[in-house]
């Protein structure tokens, strides 16, 4: 297979806005249009809501970071990020405001601590009693961005992408199921605060 998904999409350890950002540029309008249409296809969002988050008139700022990570911000607030030319991920703060944007998966309570330390989610955490995956009718292929919810919690704890398709996760039930890209309290989350 040619494409095996983004690698090491996690923000580098100890990401510091002061030193790891190599530049801020305004994005060309042609590129902006491209981003807008990609978001409309990749995420479960309708154009009006996207307009609310990111009005047509406004233009994003691209913040380039180490390891080919690009963060798109609006008025200083990070909204979207991507690795190389991979899929677009919303920031966790954005996902909290519009939770329907990504399909949810749920992990059980025991996995939450590790998730919040940046670990990837293993299949058993998703298939056990506390976990939840989309039903077969809504099966998702590998490399789909998903929102990682925690058992008993209302808001997403992390964002990641599926390493295996949801059907494979249920079948194989071993190894990494969802690779965690950003989680509550990571360096990207801290930037949104400061």
């Amino acid at each position, binding site marked *: 297979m040619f494409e095996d998904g983004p690698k090491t999409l996690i923000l580098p350890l100890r990401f510091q806005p002061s030193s790891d950002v190599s530049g801020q540029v305004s994005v060309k309008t042609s590129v902006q249009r491209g981003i807008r249409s990609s978001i409309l296809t990749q995420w479960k969002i*309708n154009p*009006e*809501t996207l*307009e*609310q*988050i990111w009005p047509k008139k406004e233009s994003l700022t691209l913040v380039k970071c180490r390891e080919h990570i690009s963060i798109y911000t609006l008025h200083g607030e990070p909204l979207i990020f991507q690795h190389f030319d991979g899929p677009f991920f919303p920031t966790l703060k954005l996902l*909290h*405001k*519009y*939770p*329907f944007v990504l399909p949810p998966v749920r992990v*059980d*309570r*025991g996995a*939450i*601590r590790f998730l*919040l330390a940046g670990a990837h989610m293993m299949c058993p955490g998703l298939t*056990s*009693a*506390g976990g939840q995956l989309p039903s077969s009718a809504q099966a998702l292929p590998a490399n789909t961005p998903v929102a990682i919810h*925690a*058992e*008993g*919690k*209302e*808001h997403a*704890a992390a964002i990641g992408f599926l390493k295996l398709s949801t059907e494979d996760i249920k079948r194989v039930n071993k190894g990494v199921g969802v690779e965690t890209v950003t989680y*509550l*309290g990571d360096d990207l*989350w*801290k930037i949104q*605060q400061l």
Partner: protein
Amino acid sequence: MASAEGPPAVEPTPPVEVLYCQVCSFPVEYCEFGSSFTRCKEWLQKTDEALYDRFYSEEALQAKIGTLSLEAQEKLEKDTAKKEAKAEAKAETALKKKMASQVTIKRIERNKRKHVTAILGLENFDVDLKKAAKFFAQKFATGASVTKNLQGQDEIVVQGDVSGEIVEMIEDGVGLLKGVPKDNVIEVEEKKKKG
């Protein structure tokens, strides 16, 4: 499904309002995994009683144990308590270091008559170096910049001999220099002569 031809009557979905804990910046339900849980609980109780009851009342705690066995739950609690203690200890040492850190004002000779003043250590007191440099440049009508010295620390370099005035400014707490305690300032003279 409603037709998409007519006037676009689709309303944008409004954002969900999330209450973020002021102490640990997580959504309130995740405070238990942060390192300042006790403080978070106090804050939440003060701010929003209803939410506090929702999460921390007896039934809520019972329901939360959910699919974890009893020992696993206890272990989880012990681990979080340990993590919290560690975080507190770290915050304390950081604060003590801050108190002990100094602002060093160096007067360096450039030529026989000319000097530059270098100020190290302001960042320990949360002073924005770039803004401070601009401020000095304006005040003294000379050049000022932020550079990294050989040890890798950031310092503000001001052209000319302004060390005395800087000390005064720190004492008076002018402008951005507000947080700096005056006793932590030392003056040094350096002769960078390449004879």
